[in-house]
C-alpha cells in the first residue's frame, strides 16, 4: 500500500474539524468499528495503589485522541496495557473488536505488528542506522530484502529524514530520533498508533513538527492515541481529550483543551449538526489485526 504524498499532505491543524459524532460513542459489545475499547480495566502495581482504576472508554477507528493527566496518573500504564507489556488485573481491553486478553503468548508479536508505538525515549536500536532501524520493523514480518529496500527510503523521505539514512541514532538530534521512531512505527501502516509522551524530551518547535507528523498519519486513517503533558499542543489541535487522575478517567471531551472546560451549548449544537463522518478507514487488506487471532 503506497502512502502517497497527497494522502499525507498536511492540513492546517487549527482549522481541522472534530471528526467524531458523539452519537457514535455508545458502547456496543465488541464493535469492530472501535479501534480501542476498555471495559472497567484496572491494574495496580505492588508498590502503589492505582496504575489504572476501572477505566472504560472507546475510541473509534480513525480518531485522534489525546490522553492527558499529571505524572503518575496512569497514562503509561494504559499504553503498556494496550501493547500487552502488562496484563490488566480486571476488566477487558478490546482492539478492533477483539479481546486482546485472549491472545496467547505466541500471538503477541503478531498483534504488536499491527501497532505503531512511539515513546518519549525513542527506543531506537543503538547499533543500527536510521535505515536499519526502520527496516527492522519490516524484517520481523518476514518481508523480503528487496521490498524493504524500496519501502524504507520512501517512509524516511515522508518523515523528512532522506539525508540521514546512514546515520546512527546517537548522531541525530532528539527531534530527528523521534522522526525515525515514528517512521518505524508507521512503515507497516498499522491501523493503530500509540504515542507515549512523544514530545516529552523535545523543545516546543521540534514538538510541533512531531505532532504534525502524527496528525498526518492520522489523516491516512490510522487511529492515533497520544499521551501528553503538552498543554499548548492539546489546546491548539482541539482533538478529543481523555483526562486521567490517579488511574481514573475524569474527563472525556471532544475537541477538548488540556485543562477542563465546558463545551458551550452552541458548540455542541454545531457538532451535532455536522454530517456523520464517513468511515475514516476503509477496510484495508493491510489491516490484519484479525490475523493475530488466527491460530
Amino acid at each position, binding site marked *: 500500500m503506497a502512502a502517497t504524498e497527497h494522502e499525507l499532505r498536511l492540513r492546517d491543524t487549527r482549522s481541522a474539524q472534530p471528526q467524531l459524532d458523539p452519537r457514535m460513542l455508545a458502547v456496543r459489545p465488541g464493535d469492530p468499528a472501535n479501534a480501542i475499547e476498555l471495559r472497567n480495566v484496572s491494574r495496580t502495581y505492588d508498590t502503589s495503589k492505582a496504575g489504572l482504576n476501572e477505566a472504560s472508554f472507546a475510541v473509534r477507528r480513525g480518531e485522534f485522541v489525546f490522553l492527558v493527566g499529571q505524572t503518575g496518573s496512569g497514562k503509561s500504564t494504559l499504553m503498556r496495557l494496550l*501493547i500487552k*507489556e502488562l496484563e490488566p488485573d480486571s476488566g477487558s481491553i478490546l482492539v478492533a473488536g477483539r479481546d486482546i486478553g485472549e491472545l496467547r503468548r*505466541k500471538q503477541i*508479536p*503478531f*498483534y*504488536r*505488528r499491527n*501497532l505503531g*508505538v512511539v515513546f518519549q525515549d525513542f*527506543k*531506537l*536500536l*543503538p*547499533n*543500527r542506522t536510521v535505515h536499519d532501524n526502520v527496516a*527492522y*520493523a519490516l*524484517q*520481523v*514480518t518476514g518481508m*523480503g530484502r528487496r521490498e524493504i529496500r524500496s519501502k524504507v527510503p520512501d517512509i524516511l523521505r515522508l518523515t523528512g529524514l532522506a539525508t540521514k539514512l546512514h546515520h546512527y541514532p546517537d548522531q541525530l538530534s532528539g527531534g530527528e530520533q523521534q522522526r525515525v521512531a515514528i517512521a*518505524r512505527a508507521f512503515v507497516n501502516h498499522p491501523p493503530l498508533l500509540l504515542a507515549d509522551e512523544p514530545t516529552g524530551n523535545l523543545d516546543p518547535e521540534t514538538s510541533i513538527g512531531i505532532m504534525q507528523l502524527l496528525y498526518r498519519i492520522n489523516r491516512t486513517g490510522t487511529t492515533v492515541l497520544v499521551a501528553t503533558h503538552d498543554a499548548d499542543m492539546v489546546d491548539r489541535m482541539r482533538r478529543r481529550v481523555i483526562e486521567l487522575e490517579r488511574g481514573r478517567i475524569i474527563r472525556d471531551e471532544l475537541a477538548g483543551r488540556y485543562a477542563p472546560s465546558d463545551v458551550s451549548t452552541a458548540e455542541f449544537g454545531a457538532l451535532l449538526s455536522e454530517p456523520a463522518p464517513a468511515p475514516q478507514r476503509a477496510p484495508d487488506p493491510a489491516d490484519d489485526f484479525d490475523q493475530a487471532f488466527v491460530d
Partner: protein
Amino acid sequence: MRLGFCIREALRSLRRNAVPSFAALASVLVTLLVLGVFIPIVQATTGAANDVRGKVLVNVYLQDDATPADVTRVRAALVADPQVRSVEFVSKEAALRRESEQNPDAYKLLGGTNPLPDTLRVTPKNPDNVLALVTKLAPTQGDGGVTGADPAIESVRSSKDDTEKILTATKVVKYTTGLLALLLIVASILLISNTVRLSVFARRREVQVMKLVGATDGFIRWPFVLEGILLGAMGATLAVLLLGVIKVALIDPLVSDFALLAAPQTIGFGMLVGVLFLAGVVVSACGSALSLRRFLNV
C-alpha cells in the same frame, strides 16, 4: 535467507559491540588455554600413577621340591582367580640368571647352588586388592603361622610397606588432579557463561525494543545464539593456535627428555583440540540462549 539474516545480524552485533564481544572472546580463549594445558598434565600424571600401580606384584614362591605338575596346578588356580590379571612363571634357573646378572659378586659366592625357588609373579586386576590377594593365597592359621592355600606354595609375598605407600601416594595424586580438573572445568563454564550473560544483559533494552516492534522470540534468539557460537569459535580457534605454538615450541623438543610428557595415555592433540573447540562453542552458545531467556519474557 533466514540463515543469511542471522549471520548478518550476528556479524553486525559483533562489530558494534566490540567491547563485550572481546570480553567474551577473551574468557573463552583464556579458559580453553588453561584447560588445554591442564588436561594433558592431568592425564600424564594419572598415567604415570597408573604405571606405578601396575608394577605392584604378588610373588608366589613354590616349595623347593615342587614338580612341574605342581606348577601347572597352582598356576591354573591363580589364573582362574577373578582378582588376578596375569601370571608369569619364573623358574629357579631363570630367577638365578636374572639375579646373578644384577648382582654378580653375591651370586659368585654361592658357587653352583641355587637358593631361589620357582616363582609365580601375579599381577592383580586392581592394585588396591593386593593385600587381600596375599591373605587369600597364604591364609594366617590359628597358631599365627602361615600356610599356603596349596601345599605346593611355600610363601606369598608382596613388599607390603612399599605397596601400601605406592597405593596411597598414587591415589592422592589421582584424586587431587581429578578434583582440580573438575574445578577448572566448572570455573571455565561459569566464567564463559557469566561473560556472555553480561554482554546479553548490556543489551536487554535492545531486546525489549525488538519485542515492541513485534519480533518473535526466535527472531531475536537465533542471531544471539549464532553470535555466541561465533564468539566461542573465534576464542577456541585462537586458543587452539596458541596451544599448537606451545606444543611445537616447548613440549615437542622436551619429549625425549621427560618420560612424563611422552606418557602414552595422554590425549591426542587432535582430539584435545576438537574437545576444546566444541566445549567453547557449546558453552558460549548455551550461555547466550539461557541468558536471553530472562529478557524475552517481556
